[in-house]
């Protein structure tokens, strides 16, 4: 690839941008669960666990639709840069990338279980969010290691 060394610059900037996008996304979710109304983070997490905010299916679809595209794109772009990596094997990349795709889908769809009344507690959404953030962090770490 021509001037491949220089392509490392935009790839490197993908990392802090992704961290900021995920951090603002998590913050937005916590705000929707009452974080802004003088609640501590721990209290908000407890509230999500025991009494998650009621959300309409329409509201969830409005959130899920752009995220299905955006999260898919972000994971694809980050993972496909690993094709140029000589430090991480293709097999490892494939496993991690599929794991991130899976957890992203789990994260996007988890709240539907609460809205449909299949779950009363919000533990599933918290688990989905933590799993997705952890898996994406692993993928981004591998990308950083490959630079």
């Amino acid at each position: 690839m021509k001037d491949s060394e220089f392509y490392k610059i935009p790839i490197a900037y993908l990392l802090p941008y992704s961290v900021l996008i995920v951090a603002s996304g998590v913050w937005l979710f916590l705000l929707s669960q009452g974080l802004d109304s003088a609640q501590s983070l721990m209290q908000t997490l407890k509230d999500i666990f025991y009494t998650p905010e009621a959300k309409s299916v329409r509201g969830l679809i409005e959130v899920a639709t752009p995220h299905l595209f955006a999260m898919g794109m972000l994971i694809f772009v980050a993972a496909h840069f690993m094709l140029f990596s000589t430090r991480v094997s293709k097999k490892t990349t494939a496993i991690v990338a599929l794991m991130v795709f899976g957890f992203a889908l789990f994260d996007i769809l988890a709240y539907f279980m609460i809205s449909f009344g299949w779950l009363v507690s919000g533990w599933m959404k918290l688990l989905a969010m933590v799993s997705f953030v952890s898996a994406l962090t692993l993928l981004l770490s591998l990308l950083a290691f490959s630079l």
Partner: protein
Amino acid sequence: MKFLITKELGHTRLLTILMSAVVFFILLYLVFDVALHAYVIGTDRHGIALTLFGDAENFVEPILLDTLLLQVHSDLFMSLFSLLILTSIGIRMYGGTRIIRWAVHLVFVLGMLSAVMLLVAYFVGTWLIPVWIAVFVAWHVFAFVLGVSVLKTLLFS
């Protein structure tokens, strides 16, 4: 990423046309993004302060934190992808010259700072508004200049 590995653009006219079209769309995106922020956030220091902090005397409510955060969240995503495409084509066209290297660093840092600075201004106060305006305008201008330069090279060389 085929445009990164195709050796001679002269032999692939279709790729040149496609790259020109995507750069043209990114240039339009940059112009419309300025217009969008002018409508949503404001056009001058007073207007932006009114949006971010409201005006108690005139019963103007400040923007909700989740509305502002949603704007920042989508700004980060849009700027990341537009810059990834623009800078990759830029590096493809000009190679790794010192100027293009600095230009890539500059647009990425300014794009990121622009989004973060708006949020920081919301919490810190009005004195940061001019800084946000400067950073926001700078990232759009530098990205636009880079885009025009890439488009010119694609079309006329």
